[in-house]
C-alpha cells in the first residue's frame, strides 16, 4: 500500500495514463498540500483512474471550490480516500480564460458529491461544467446575471433595483393602490 501524496499519485497516473497531461504544482505554504494540475481535456479519465485504481482509491471528493485568477478560473477538488483513510489530494482544472473559454468537464459522473458544489462554482464564478446533469445556479436566483465571487464583480449600489422574480409585483401593487 503506497502513501497517498501528490508525488506518488502523479507517478501512478503517469504510469497508467502516459498521454494524460498532469503536472505537480508546488504550494509554498507550511501546509505542504501540493496540487496536481490536470489538463481539462484529460480530467475525466484521470478522475476515473484516481477513483478506481486499487492503489489510490480516492473515493471521496470532499470539497470543490472555484478560484478566480487574473487570467483564468480554476476548479479545485480536494479528494480523500475513505477506503485507505488518507488524503487530501488536491486536483485542479483550469479554464482557458475568464470570459469565453470557461468550460471544464464536470466530475459529477465520477463523484456525485460534486453535484451541488459544481453548481455553486458555476453560479458564483461562471465556470461551465460540461456534462453536468443539472447545471443551474445554486445560491443566486435564476434571473441573476453576473458571478459575484469574481474579483472584478461590482455590487449594485442599490439592491432595491435588482431584478427579482417578484419584480412584477411592484407595479401591480402600485396600480392597485392608485
Amino acid at each position: 500500500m503506497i502513501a497517498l501524496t501528490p508525488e506518488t499519485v502523479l507517478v501512478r497516473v503517469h504510469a497508467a495514463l502516459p498521454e494524460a497531461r498532469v503536472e505537480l504544482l508546488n504550494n509554498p505554504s507550511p501546509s505542504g498540500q501540493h496540487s496536481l494540475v490536470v489538463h481539462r481535456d484529460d480530467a475525466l479519465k484521470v478522475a476515473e483512474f484516481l477513483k478506481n485504481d486499487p492503489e489510490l482509491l480516492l473515493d471521496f471528493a470532499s470539497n470543490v471550490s472555484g478560484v478566480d485568477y487574473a487570467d483564468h478560473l480554476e476548479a479545485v477538488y480536494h479528494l480523500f480516500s475513505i477506503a485507505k483513510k488518507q488524503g487530501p489530494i488536491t486536483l485542479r482544472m483550469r479554464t482557458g480564460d475568464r470570459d469565453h473559454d470557461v468550460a471544464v468537464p464536470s466530475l459529477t459522473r465520477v463523484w456525485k458529491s460534486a453535484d451541488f458544489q459544481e453548481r455553486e462554482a458555476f453560479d458564483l464564478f461562471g465556470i461551465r461544467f460540461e456534462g453536468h446533469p443539472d447545471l443551474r445556479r445554486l445560491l443566486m436566483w435564476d434571473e441573476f446575471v453576473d458571478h459575484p465571487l469574481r474579483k472584478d464583480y461590482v455590487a449594485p449600489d442599490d439592491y432595491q433595483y435588482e431584478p427579482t422574480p417578484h419584480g412584477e409585483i411592484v407595479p401591480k401593487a402600485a396600480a392597485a393602490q392608485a
Partner: protein
Amino acid sequence: MSFSPHTVSLSAANGAGASTLDVSLGPQHPSTHGVFRMNVRMDGETIVKLQPVFGYLHRNHEKLAEKNSWLGSMPYTDRLDYICPITNNWAYAVAVEKLAGIEVPERAEYIRVIVGELTRIQNHTAFLGFILGDMGGWGSALMYAFREREKILDLFEWLTGARMMVNYMRFGGVRCDLPVGWLEKARAYVETYPAFLDEMEQLLVGNEILLSRLQGVAVLSGERAINGGLSGPVLRASGVDYDIRKVDGYGVYPRLNFRIPRGTVGDCFDRFMMRILEIRESIKILQQAFAQIPEGPIVNPAVKQRGFKPPAGEAYGRIEGPKGELGFHLISEGGEKPYRYHVRPPSLINLTLLEEMCLGAKIADVMVILGSIDIVLGEVDR
C-alpha cells in the same frame, strides 16, 4: 418536461391517464429547519421527483471574508451553522493554522476538545427534539431537549459572553481562559447528562410510532453515501467507519479513548440512533479531557492576531463537526486578507442524495428524511 411548481398544479406528466401533483414545500415550512424549499412531484402520496431549492439565506459569506482581515472572519463563522458556532470557529482556526504552520498550546487543545464535544452534545440533543417535531410530535420532546441544550449554552455564555455567537477561537489557541469554577461546573453538568439521555432514549426509542416512522425509511448504502460526499453521523449510519477525529487525529484526540458508532442498515432509525450513541462517546471524551487538562498558555504567543498575515500558499483544513466534515479551503497571497476563502459545508453536501433518498417514499416521510440528515440553513446557503 417542465417542472416549475411556483404554485400547486395538476399535470399529466406521467403519460395518459396518470396525473401527478407538483407542490412547493417551503421555504416557510416549519419542518424545513429554516428557509429551504423542495419542489416535489407526487404520484398520489409517493414522491416521484424532488428538487431542492437553495439560496434564501445566501449572504455571500465567502465574498465578505475576502474583504475582511483573517481574524475578522472568525465571528462570521459563528453564523454558518449557528447551532454549533464553536466547531465552526475551530474548523476555521485549524485551516489557518495549517496555512501558516502554527502550533497550538496543549491547554488550548484541551479547551477546544471540551467546548467542541459540548457543542456536539447540544447539537445532537437538539436534533432529538427536532426530529420528533418532524414526525409530528410537536412540543414536548423539543422542550426537553432545549432545556438540556440551554444548560450547555449557559456554560458557553459564562465562558465567552454569548450563548451562540461566541467568537471564541483564535489562531493558535482560544480567546480567553476558562473562568474560575467553570471546569467544576461543566464536570458536574456532564455527570448529570447521562441520566437525562437515558430517560430521553427510553421515552423515544421504545415508542412504536417512532420506530415505524423511522425504521426502513430511506435506506442508504455505504457506497452511495461515500460517492455522494456524505459525512458525519449520516455517513457512519450507513456503516462507513470514517471519523475525522480518528482519521486526521487533530488536536489531542489521539490521546483520548473513544469509539466510533456505526449503523448497520442505513435507514432513518440508524441516523437517529447514531446521535444518541455519539453523545455517549462525547461524554467519555469529556470525562477524560476534564481529568487530563493541564495548566499553561491558552494561545500561541508568537501569533499576531490583529494584522495577521499568513505566508502565501493554500491549505485545506477540516474537522469532524457535529453535522459532518466542516472544512475551509484558504488561499493566501501573504496579505492581510484571504485571496480565497471557501467553506465546505456539511449541511449542503449531505443534501446531495436527498432526492435519491426520498424517491418512492411518502410525502410525510420527506420531512423525517430531511430531519434525519440534520441541516442548518445558515450553513447550506452561506
